[in-house]
């Protein structure tokens, strides 16, 4: 009887050890390259490549982190669930921001598949798509798996919204096509989003280039920020438009709220601690929106009349009558693709300069707005 217990005990120990072993992608721990602003990814440099860790705020399983092992010598690397040979030469992107990162690394030619090509603002990519050198791989529920398989990319850059988006790509992973979740959009700091260029650079072995590029953007950003006049009374800023009685506003800790703060403005919902959008009752916004100086990003409207066509009560809205309205859709294409959300991710310095020009028009700076235009 004791022998049977002994056998069961040994079996359990072996089973547990085996389970633990399977959970680790790689036992080797590399040197972590610290980020300056980004919080949702980590790069570890190891002898034959990199280990990339991506925090997924929407997925509480898998410890909320995805690990990717990038190797120059994948054949000699230890067994791993996700091993990606680098440098990559063929990639597919599911977000236009991915295109911006890759083209900044001068690797546009590696892009073979994109989502919603009509929304892409990058002219090189649009040209390649028109020439049939880049394919439409679909989006959301319409992912064209067969097209992706036919392209056979070294990696598919996706974005994780929730657990279903993770399971959606399991098919590709099973077929040996690595899927990497890029959650740059969860970063709350404008420079944090730009810093994801380092993440992309690891796939192309261009980390030094990316670091230098990011440092220059950071310098520009900080210089612009420090040049902003410090006034005791900051201009009050309102953002967005209502839809069917609900006004979706960025949280007080969001990406755009941080932009407003850095540009010397006072976001009227800054006391809200959320980093994602919040749906507010329209009457709450009406009551709060007093003495507003600037109204920014009213969806994709181009005129004040279009604002009224969304909700005719905005005619009585104080900011509609008194505030200056600016929208970030100056670089919008015919299909509604907005370059603010594409190349803008890598140009927070230009966005900040636009906002500085808008908020502090009395200052001596002469800058033609790049992403913004006034709505009249």
């Amino acid at each position: 009887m004791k022998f049977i217990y002994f056998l069961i005990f040994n079996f359990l120990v072996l089973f547990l050890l085996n389970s633990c072993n399977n959970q680790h992608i790689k036992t080797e721990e590399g040197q972590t390259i610290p980020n300056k602003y980004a919080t949702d990814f980590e790069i570890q440099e190891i002898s034959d490549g990199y280990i990339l860790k991506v925090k997924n705020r929407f997925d509480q399983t898998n410890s909320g982190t995805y690990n990717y092992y990038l190797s120059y010598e994948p054949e000699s690397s230890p067994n791993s669930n996700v091993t990606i040979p680098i440098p990559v030469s063929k990639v597919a992107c599911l977000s236009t921001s991915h295109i911006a990162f890759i083209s900044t690394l001068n690797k546009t030619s590696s892009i073979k598949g994109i989502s919603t090509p009509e929304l892409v603002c990058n002219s090189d990519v649009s040209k390649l798509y028109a020439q049939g050198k880049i394919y439409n791989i679909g989006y959301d529920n319409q992912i064209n798996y067969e097209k992706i398989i036919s392209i056979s990319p070294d990696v598919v850059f996706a974005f994780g919204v929730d657990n279903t988006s993770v399971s959606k790509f399991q098919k590709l992973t099973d077929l040996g096509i690595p899927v990497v979740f890029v959650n740059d959009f969860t970063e709350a700091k404008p420079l944090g989003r730009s810093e994801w260029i380092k993440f992309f650079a690891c796939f192309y072995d261009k980390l030094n280039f990316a670091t230098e590029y990011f440092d220059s953007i950071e310098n520009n950003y900080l210089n612009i920020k420090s040049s902003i006049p410090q006034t005791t009374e900051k201009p009050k800023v309102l953002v967005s438009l209502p839809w069917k009685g609900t006004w979706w506003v960025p949280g007080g800790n969001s990406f755009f709220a941080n932009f407003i703060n850095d540009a010397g403005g006072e976001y009227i919902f800054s006391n809200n601690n959320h980093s994602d959008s919040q749906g507010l009752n329209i009457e709450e916004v009406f009551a709060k929106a007093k003495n507003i100086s600037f109204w920014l990003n009213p969806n994709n409207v181009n005129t004040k009349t279009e604002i009224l066509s969304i909700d005719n009560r905005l005619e009585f809205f104080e900011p509609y009558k008194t505030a200056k309205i600016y929208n970030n859709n100056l670089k919008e294409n015919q299909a509604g693709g907005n370059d603010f959300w594409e190349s803008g991710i890598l140009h927070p310095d230009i966005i900040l300069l636009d906002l500085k020009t808008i908020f502090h028009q009395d200052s001596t700076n002469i800058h033609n707005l790049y992403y913004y235009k006034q709505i009249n």
Partner: protein
Amino acid sequence: MKKTKLTIKFILLSVFLIFLGLLDLLSGSIQISVSDIFNYIFSSNTESEFYLLLKEFRFPRMSMAILAGASLSISGLIMQTLFRNPLAGPDILGISSGASLGVAIVVLGGSYLFGNHFYHASNYITLIAAGIGAASILGLILIISYKLRDILSILIIGILLAGIISAIVNILQYFATGINVKSFVVWTMGSLTASSSKDLLLASPIILIFVLLAFSLSKNLNLMLLGENFAKTMGVNIKLLRILSFTIVSILTGVITVYCGPIGFVGIAVPHISRWIFNTSNHFVLIPASALLGGIFMLCGDILSNLFTSNGNLPINAITAILAAPFIIWVVFKNKRTFV
């Protein structure tokens, strides 16, 4: 004696409606007092802090709740009488689905069909699209009702039409981008807060006219309860009655769907509550009773939606379903005689 009882019930319900209306005006994200409301009503001081809030938000929301409740309940009552089916409602003919299809085409497919700038979710475009969608289905139903004599066949065709439309909407959703799907889903949740005083001025005369028209059909609807053949022998023009009834139901449902989104269950539940409270099948009583109780029902829903969240964003469609569905089940089990 019977008449006095009836009058008392109507007076009590009217008082309750006014009380709930006042309560609804008080509920919302911004705290206001009863004196603010009376100041607004009697002094019309445009400089008052809450003037705009009451004029453009609270009053349109409260009025739209009453109008929606009344319209949908009367529509449901007419449908139940016409189809002699206790579970018939205004959305059974596919009219709400037609409005949904119109909105789905604009919101989900607009950017493909007309380019992004057309799409841009203009409220007017959404309203027109919903109106055209509802009217198209109404036209179709009228043609079918002219060709088909059997009322049950029309009911089945209505359900099938709703199914086809729902499939088309699903396809549109499948091809739409996330943000457009979100806009559409928000619309389908129903909202009383989206209406302005201008919308109210436009919607209320139409609703009032068709509610009065519905009331004028009371005698014929009463005769229909005794069967189509009996009604015919009593001189009722069945075809005309059907066309008029469908027009009333479609316009009332269509207008409410256009302004508030598709609101379910009210049209099915409230006529049963009316029959239960007034213990009658007489449409001269049931039509005004359904209008009053429908208003009360929707006001309760709106007050609850404002109680549950600080920013009053709970979708009204969800609240009405939660309130009405158990009541329908309860009516089915406890009081079978309330059925037509």
